[in-house]
């Protein structure tokens, strides 16, 4: 007998779910509250300050923050661009042609998806040291692009495979070139996949910490994740700027992520469900 769900039950679920959701938001609420605490209330034992100080968001720009924000943007956009340039042709080729070693290639992509730069940190450090690329934005772009390429190829491969070949054949009968077909037919249809790969790579590069910590030594090349640590001094911590900076660095990313949330999961788990 298919029972009709009684209303009180769904309300109980809703209540429970809201509580759980609120718990997961709490640290970020505290982040905002602390960012708005005036300096003289920083050490108060209160949940919220008596005055709200928006000034932290203004005078943070007098510190190194702006510079690091620019570096984070450069690193994240640079690696995203690089990933898309490499991943789109790679995904197209593997989706459309059965070539020798195709399975090996896709398997390879999957394996690199599982690796993280942390496990190869010393290697990465030695490598870029020998290239003379310590303290350079290019090094960070290369590493971030390398480690996000796998996911991008994988998710784009799934999207392009789903586009019927007949569409491309029809286009070529109508006189479109190979490249024309790619730009006019395939890419627009794979757009959701491209956007997902784009945002995902951007966020990963934006949040990356350990490689940036290892490969940068001067404030001029530190992205935000590393730079914010400089507010934590040996004896004194500049909490207000630390949290104002965190808020600026965190919230845009959360919103971007909300836009692609469903697709990322299907991409990450595609390996097994396929």
């Amino acid at each position: 007998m298919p029972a009709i769900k009684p209303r009180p039950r769904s309300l109980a679920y809703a209540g429970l779910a809201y509580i759980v959701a609120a718990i997961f938001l709490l640290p970020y609420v505290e982040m905002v509250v602390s960012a708005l605490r005036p300096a003289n209330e920083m050490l108060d034992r209160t949940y919220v300050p008596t005055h709200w100080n928006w000034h932290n968001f203004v005078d943070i720009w007098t510190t190194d923050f702006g510079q690091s924000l620019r570096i984070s943007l450069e690193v994240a956009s640079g690696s995203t661009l690089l990933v898309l340039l490499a991943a789109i042709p790679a995904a197209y080729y593997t989706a459309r042609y059965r070539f020798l070693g195709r399975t090996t290639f896709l398997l390879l992509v999957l394996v690199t998806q599982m690796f993280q730069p942390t496990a190869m940190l010393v290697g990465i450090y030695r490598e870029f040291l020998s290239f003379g690329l310590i303290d350079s934005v290019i090094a960070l772009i290369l590493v971030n692009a390398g480690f996000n390429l796998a996911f991008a190829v994988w998710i784009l491969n799934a999207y392009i495979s789903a586009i019927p070949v007949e569409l491309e054949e029809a286009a070529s009968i109508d006189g479109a070139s190979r490249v024309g077909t790619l730009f006019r037919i395939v890419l627009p249809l794979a757009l959701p996949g491209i956007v997902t790969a784009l945002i995902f790579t951007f966020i990963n590069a934006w949040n990356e910490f350990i490689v940036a910590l290892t490969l940068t030594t001067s404030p001029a090349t530190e992205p935000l994740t590393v730079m914010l640590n400089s507010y934590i001094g040996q004896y004194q911590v500049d909490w207000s700027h630390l949290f104002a900076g965190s808020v600026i660095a965190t919230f845009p990313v959360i919103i971007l992520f909300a836009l692609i949330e469903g697709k990322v999961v299907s991409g990450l788990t595609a390996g097994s469900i396929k």
Partner: protein
Amino acid sequence: MIAVVVLWPVVIMVRTAFQKISPDGFILGQAGWRNFVFLWQEPALPGILVRTSIWVLTVVVITMLIALAMAQLFNQEFPGRRVARWALIAPWAASVVMTAIVFRWSLNADNGIINVALHDLGLMPVYGTDAADWLGRPVVAFAWMMLVAIFVSVPFSTYALLAGLQAIPTETYEAARIDGAGAWRIYIAITLPLLRPAFIVALLINVMNVFNSFPIIWEMTRGGPGHQTSTTTTFMYQLKQSYIGESAAMSVVNFALVLLIVLVYLRATSVQGRAA
């Protein structure tokens, strides 16, 4: 031709990934196995290995259990479900560095908000004492950091399991209900087995992430006092700053473990492929 142009970055990446780690003698001249011997003789190493196992096991197991329950909850129909799900995204999308810093701040012995709340509840009598200094005591600090690790791992796991739950056809449930199965019986006999593929993938991705997790420990205690809250990952980083050869040896060990997990992953997915 495209294949060559496109393939090479990935191939080079993987190849150098192997080259740069394995011949650490090459990096340091003729060190041979000496770095591994040094590493093996580190007095802190046994504790670090034990702690790493506890770290990975505890965080992953608790994360997966919470995620199972939460996926079930967020799979129910209720008003505002979409908004509630969005809230889960925050810890997943936000930089772990910043999440860890907020927790460190909230645990501050003198005025951290967690201490303020515990004080108001009567659970933490005096500010600024040892009892309030959660991150100053290795065992307690490690427990708090595991909590943070669970906190940042649960959202992804929940989403992965939700995707798995949604792939289960409703007819299967209806059939079971017609056969007279109760809610709990349906969960054990139908939901869990059908959720297996999503569960295994989420589990392995978590093992990988948690094993390689660096920012939480780094931001909250730097692995200290001493090495008493270090895992192999943070220890590797600390070694890098003075003994790069030994750090490379630690990396090789870490890398071998990661490789092992990848093999298990590939095996698990191919087993599924054959079963399907």
